[in-house]
């Protein structure tokens, strides 16, 4: 049961290392790379707090082995790049109270980021569908949806 080489890009930086096969992508990001923005909240792949972007697609990093992300481009909430979608979303969430305790927020931001990159002008229903894999217990979702629409440049949706 040896280690496996792992070469991937995380937030634009090349990472070359080796990991045990059973290391989850979520734990690799959090424990090995110290990118603790990605959270773990359940064991059944439901809560979505672990959502990251892999080659631009949101997926649950707790349902993925780190070795399965080899050769991929991974983006986490820490992958802030000036002027890009993620930053606009972060500002909107702050401004529109799209967060309270903040634990679900990184996952929400990554799912919302993927949504806006594919669909820059979503309706409120499309936002809710895109966030269907992210649980929040604090907000009741209303202000999260408002935040995403705010970032999309429209406050009231359709």
């Amino acid at each position, binding site marked *: *049961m*040896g280690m*496996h080489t792992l070469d991937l890009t995380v937030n634009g930086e090349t990472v070359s290392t080796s990991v*045990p*096969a*059973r290391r*989850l992508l979520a734990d690799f990001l959090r424990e090995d790379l110290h990118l603790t923005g990605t959270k773990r909240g359940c*064991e*059944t*792949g*439901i809560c*979505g707090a672990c*959502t990251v972007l892999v080659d631009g*697609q*949101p*997926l*649950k990093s*707790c*349902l*993925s*082995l780190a*070795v*399965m992300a080899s050769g991929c481009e991974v983006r986490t909430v820490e992958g802030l790049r000036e002027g890009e979608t993620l930053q606009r979303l972060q500002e909107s969430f702050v401004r529109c109270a799209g967060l309270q305790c903040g634990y679900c927020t990184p996952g929400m931001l990554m*799912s919302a980021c*993927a949504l806006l990159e594919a669909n820059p002008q979503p309706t409120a229903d499309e936002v809710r*569908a*895109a966030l*269907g*894999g992210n649980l929040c217990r604090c907000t009741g979702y209303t202000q999260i949806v408002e935040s995403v629409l705010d970032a999309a440049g429209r406050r009231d949706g359709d």
Partner: protein
Amino acid sequence: MHEFDFLEPATLAEASRMADDLGDGVRFIAGGTALVLTLRQRMVRPSHLISLGRIDSLRGIDVGPDGGLRIGALTRHAEIAGHAHVRAHWPMLAGMAARLANPQVRNQGTIGGNLCYADPATDPPACLLALGARVVLASHRGTRELALEDFLVDYYETALGQDELLQEIRLPALPPGARGVYARFLRTAAEHRPLATVATVVQVEGDVCTRARIAVGAAVPVAQRLPSAEAELAGFAITRERIEHCAANAAATLSPLDDARGSADYRQAMVRVQLLRSLGDAFGLERT
């Protein structure tokens, strides 16, 4: 989870031989959404995981000269949902793939992985059964083709041999004018897994149904066609009374699951309700 070795064969034959050589302690892993959960819950202890990720021959969606569809086993649900040809010609399939589970799982899970894991509380089986799906199983010894109903053997059990992989799913071309309706019934709006799935594909000439394929999943241990229900429709003029009768009889033939997620009675009742609604939609009758 427990420790294991992670192997990455480049070809299907290589993957199959590995499974043969290493014996019982191996599992194939595709998207991982189901298997990683099982590993994390420490319910299985494979010595080796054989990743299919490098086997490109398992990818891709193609249309055959006869108009049939070939879907590689590693195709992700999101790819099926977004594929232009599938959306245009198999809207029921695209619609099902667009709504199953949640966005992240749709990006990560594969249609082949779903069928091989054979969890009944998922969407693809009933939908594919109603579309007449066949599967191609491959090993280093060759390939064989099965009807999907023969591949899905039982609750979490398929016809895969120890060294076999699911290679692709084949759908025959739909005849022109065929209408398909796929419905997933969730017990409440907050549920993540369907309690019943109902798929209907019908053809009509005038007000007479010429063909009907009906499949039910999730409510039963393994998704199944409903031939007796189909026989009540094919060749008959379609009226509200007929489809009500059909739905009631179809539900009555089932042996539904009974567990913490829902009783057998409720599952049976919901199959009846949903099948009636789906047939109504498929035949263009107004909902009451």
